[in-house]
């Protein structure tokens, strides 16, 4: 090569190497430019994800947006969108069994090859169409000091809340809230009914003389703090948070009278809506959700029961958690699980509306 060409060679190779460097930096972002929309409850549910998962996704070049609402409201948004997906990953409830999983026509398959964390899960906790997100324990949360003041023994089941000393001081979930169906079904069972016969439950609900029906768990924590409420039917996580916020509350796993069950469980599932354009990012998210660190964070902050066994045994070391939640696997297995295949939730809402309207 003659001397005058050397600069051009140098120049070309410099340009090429810079080009390679920058393009390799571009390729580092697997989800460059991808916006993943997650449909979940708002408030602290969303905050946990913002803390743990969002930074990881952003490091891969993407962005996460949240669509907040209860699973029922989000389902309505999904149906209203007609041919488009208003979000890419959704938290659903076991109560939505029929709507989602009878025909799978609203959802698409999850890329299970991305689900590296399935080693932490049981067989039944994942499939092509859904992956478990968490479970909750629906309990009776009561203020032990107020109970002592009133001379009442600790409640054991729902009917105990119908005590007249507690009138106007009890809250139960509105049927449209997250905890609505599970607790409604449980009260029906405890009153002698079942999924297809909920009328006995309605009688009990009327007798409770509830202050109001909560639609956000956060309300319950506030109400315990302000002394508005002495007892509530909520999932254990809210009771835990009320305790951490300073209220002297305890949990009781309700005895489902007339059955052998003690306690009520509720499961959540993660699904990908059919028309989502970013199923790989959605599958990535679902995998991240199963990450033991995230599940621990979720459990400690929100009081949900993690999906994987390892995390459950780790939590037993936290004394407050161990006290307020049921961590013995055998007893967890004995909790009432509503069989939503047998339930007509639409009819439940109808009957609920009629019964509670003022």
């Amino acid at each position: 090569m003659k001397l005058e060409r050397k600069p051009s060679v140098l120049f070309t190779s410099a340009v090429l190497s810079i080009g390679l460097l920058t393009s390799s930096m571009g390729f580092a972002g697997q989800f460059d430019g991808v916006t993943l929309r997650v449909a979940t409850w708002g408030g602290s549910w969303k905050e946990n994800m913002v803390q743990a998962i969002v930074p990881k996704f952003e490091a891969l070049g993407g962005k996460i947006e949240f669509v907040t609402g209860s699973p029922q409201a989000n389902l309505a948004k999904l149906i209203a969108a007609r041919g488009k997906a208003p979000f890419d990953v959704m938290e659903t409830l076991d109560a939505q069994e029929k709507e989602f999983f009878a025909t799978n026509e609203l959802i698409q398959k999850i890329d299970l090859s991305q689900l590296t964390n399935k080693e932490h899960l049981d067989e039944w906790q994942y499939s092509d169409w859904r992956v478990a997100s968490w479970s909750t324990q629906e309990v009776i949360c009561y203020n032990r000091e107020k109970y002592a003041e009133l001379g009442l023994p600790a409640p054991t089941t729902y009917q105990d809340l119908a005590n007249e000393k507690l009138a106007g001081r009890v809250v139960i979930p509105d049927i449209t809230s997250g905890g609505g169906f599970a607790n409604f079904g449980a009260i029906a069972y405890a009153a002698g009914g079942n999924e297809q016969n909920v009328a006995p439950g309605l009688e009990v609900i009327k007798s409770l003389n509830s202050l109001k029906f909560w639609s956000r768990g956060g309300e319950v924590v506030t109400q315990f703090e302000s002394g508005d409420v002495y007892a509530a039917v909520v999932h254990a996580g809210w009771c835990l948070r009320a305790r951490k916020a300073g209220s002297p509350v305890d949990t009781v796993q309700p005895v489902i009278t007339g059955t052998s069950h003690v306690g009520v469980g509720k499961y959540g599932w993660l699904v990908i809506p059919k028309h989502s354009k970013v199923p790989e990012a959605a599958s990535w998210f679902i995998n991240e959700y199963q990450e033991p660190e995230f599940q621990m964070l979720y459990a400690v902050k929100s009081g949900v029961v993690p999906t994987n066994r390892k995390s459950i045994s780790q939590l037993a070391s936290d004394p407050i958690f161990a006290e307020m939640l049921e961590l013995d696997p055998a007893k967890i297995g004995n909790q009432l699980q509503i069989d939503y295949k047998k339930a007509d939730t639409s009819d439940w809402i109808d009957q609920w509306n009629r019964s509670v309207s003022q």
Partner: protein
Amino acid sequence: MGTEAATSTVQRADLLARISARRRKGPPPRRGYPWGKLGHYLYCGLSYIFLLSPMIVVIGASFHGGEYYTAIKFPPDDPSLQWYTKIPTAQFEALALSFGLAMLAALGACVIGIPAALGIVRGKLPGRSVISSVFRAPLQIPAIVTGIAFLQLYYLFGDATGLYFQGTFIGLYIGHLFVATPYVVGTVTAILQRFDERLEEAAFSLGASRWRTFRRVTLPVIMPGVYAGALYSFMVSFADVPISIFLTAPGFVTYPVELFYGMENDFDPSILASSSLVIFFCLLVLLGMQKLVGLDNLLRSGSR
């Protein structure tokens, strides 16, 4: 309307009053407050307290010093500006959307409403009152019915053509325009009815073209009515919930709907902070209008 017939009565009464006043030597008659001035003022004071207290409480409570779950109190326990710094961007986006939408809705309502009013008042049409009721009809339809009707319309249209308008700006805009137009039609009609057409005829006879006459003579006179109608349109659109709740979609919400969902799902004292900012903003807009047009002029001409 009884007011037309009363005009001659008014003129007579006015004349009588002036004559009588000149004859009387004593002080002018007391204002017509049945319970006395003080009683009336007190009653109105209570009404004002009733009306304004929620907003004052919201502003005060926005200085909430506690953590996320502590009960929100007024007066706040421990004043701090913390929640003003924690307002999520989603709320600002929703605010921008609401504002832009309201401005455009007011504008659109004028564009549709002014010609309509002109036609109703000036056109020698036989079915005038029917046409007028058609324009007033959206006011009769309950807002929630409008919302669900448009939603269904967009579904039908979308199923037929593949173009879905729900959750889009145009879809939302059409819904807001629908309910905003009657206000402009109403106020401009009212002011046109008192307009002296001879002003226009004078301009004509002096050689002005139709458009020029309209622009230079008619428009300035009816402007107070236009402003009043536009103001009502803006208010209705900015504050609307029932229509917007059906026509918005995740990621595309107006401010009131964002607040509504926030109250249901995501309650966060930052909502109080952003609400206080909105109240403050409304006050500013009001001040601006007072300087520009004068509120009393604006609302005086809004009569039917």
